[in-house]
């Protein structure tokens, strides 16, 4: 019996919806059988919590008296530069932005203690933020200089808009060279000394909906501790990546662009993050509800860590040189056991994405839905799927000429 989102919402409103997490569904569906489970379960909740560099926020700070046009000027929030090439008092703060005087990797490996992601975290936490700006002055916007404290509760809008989040599967990073390397996948020890991975596996939103049958543009989600929406497919969305027989991508593939009102989010779920020798970023909490509209959709949510394979990539050579070579594939069940075997070597594993926090997100979302506080949204357009033929292209460099 197929259900519709409207029918599920009706049950949510009455407080009668049956909601389970993407971890719970695995054993429940095995025990009850797919058809009974698909009938009984209305929603499966997912979650992921990891560093996501494709994150940022728009702010409209309100007009000063006299007015200043920040657009085309230079603007900083707590000394971190923001993008001001838009309307008069709108700015965009990217998660990886660094203060001009940050030493970067001059003292290698750089520490990157404070950047855009940290400003976003402090902003959400309700702390006052220092805004400093210079502009060129016009007849209608005469002011050239502005220095003020701002606070999220006073400014007009604060909108989290992450262009690429929630990667559907990702690389396992290792280091074949004979020296330590510092990457966005963490510190990698020489000679295959450790392996770092970064997804929540069986709990991860897009791994539970591998063909994007329910998650689409307009899907309402848990974002940064509040409510957000899928705005579009994320950049580098690659639905045609290699997939297993179960449909689950075996390489980095789908991504989401997400949006939401930062004012109702929480700092525990948007954490400023420093990657040694690499830079600053933001660790983002995202959870998507998957409406169980059919047996097929339920079957996808039953995916477990043992069914999801990830490629092992050498970050000393293959990754920086954009070579397609991989060192092998490994399942999340193996990765989560704490040790994997790579080229005959027994290697300890570490993660950058937090499974306990992903679990917490899936449970919070479950509670919201059970209590009738969170209704599902019908997607207004699908994400591009396998049939779109969209692939992830490298840059074709062409000489500019003289």
């Amino acid at each position, binding site marked *: 019996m197929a259900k519709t989102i409207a029918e599920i919402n009706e049950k949510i409103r009455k407080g009668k919806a049956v909601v389970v997490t993407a971890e719970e569904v695995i054993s429940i569906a095995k025990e009850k059988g797919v058809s009974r489970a698909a009938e009984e379960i209305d929603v499966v909740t997912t979650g992921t*919590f*990891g*560093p996501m560099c494709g994150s940022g926020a728009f702010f409209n700070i309100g007009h000063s008296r006299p007015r200043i046009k920040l657009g085309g000027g230079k603007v900083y929030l707590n000394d971190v530069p923001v993008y001001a090439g838009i309307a008069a008092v709108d700015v965009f703060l990217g998660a990886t932005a660094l203060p001009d005087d940050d030493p970067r990797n001059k003292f290698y*490996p750089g*520490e990157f*203690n404070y950047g855009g992601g940290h400003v976003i975290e402090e902003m959400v936490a309700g702390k006052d933020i220092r805004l400093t700006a210079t502009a060129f002055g016009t007849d209608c916007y005469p002011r050239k200089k502005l220095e003020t404290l701002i606070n999220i509760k006073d400014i007009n809008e604060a909108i989290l808009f992450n262009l690429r989040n929630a990667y559907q599967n990702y690389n396992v990073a290792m280091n074949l060279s*004979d*020296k*330590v390397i510092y990457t966005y996948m*963490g*510190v990698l*020890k*020489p000679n295959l*000394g*450790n*392996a*770092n991975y970064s997804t929540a596996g069986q709990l991860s939103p897009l791994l539970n909906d591998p063909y994007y049958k329910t998650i689409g543009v307009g899907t309402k989600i848990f974002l940064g501790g509040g409510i957000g929406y899928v705005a579009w497919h994320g950049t580098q969305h690659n639905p045609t990546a290699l997939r297993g027989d179960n449909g689950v991508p075996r390489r980095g593939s789908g991504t989401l662009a997400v949006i939401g009102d930062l004012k109702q989010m929480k700092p525990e779920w948007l*954490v*400023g*993050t*420093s*990657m*040694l020798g690499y830079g600053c970023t933001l*660790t983002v909490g995202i959870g998507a509800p998957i409406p169980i509209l059919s047996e097929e959709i339920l079957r996808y949510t039953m995916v477990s860590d043992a069914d999801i394979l990830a490629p092992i990539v050498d970050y000393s050579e293959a990754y920086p040189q954009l070579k397609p070579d991989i060192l092998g594939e490994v399942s999340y069940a193996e990765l*989560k056991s*704490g040790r994997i075997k790579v080229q005959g070597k027994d290697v*300890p*594993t*570490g*993660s*950058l*994405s*937090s*499974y*306990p*926090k992903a*679990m917490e997100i899936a449970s919070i979302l479950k509670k919201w839905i059970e209590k009738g506080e969170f209704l599902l949204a019908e997607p207004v357009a699908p994400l591009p799927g396998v049939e779109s033929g969209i692939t992830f292209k490298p840059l074709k460099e062409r000489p500019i000429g003289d």
Partner: protein
Amino acid sequence: MNVSRRIVLHFPPNITEQPVVYRLVKDFGLTFNILKASVSPGEEGLLVMELSGEQKNYDKGIKYLTETGVEIQSLSQDVVRDESRCTHCGACITICPTEAFSLEPKTRKVLFDHNKCVVCGLCVKACPPRAMILHF
């Protein structure tokens, strides 16, 4: 007077192959108990040990170590975890030379065993949300 201290030795690459520790025993009559070693040729080495002996020999031994270019750090410092910042990601697990971090299998939370920590400081900068804090 006899002393016994836990220290961390950082060896620059050029002296990882010299028999430094052997000389501590032979020339200064000190005894040692290695708690953790990670020295590989051509890289910086790290040795955590308990070094014991007569105070004056101990001092001479430390002076000798300093002269060879070994950087010494005593364990009077302390590393603690700010529980409110730890996200239980697990990035620290493979970084720690003494396996002070472990995964609790059921909850998959990252446990920190303070007793195993030898205050090498490696996790402090490797922890993405900077939850590990060095106290002096």
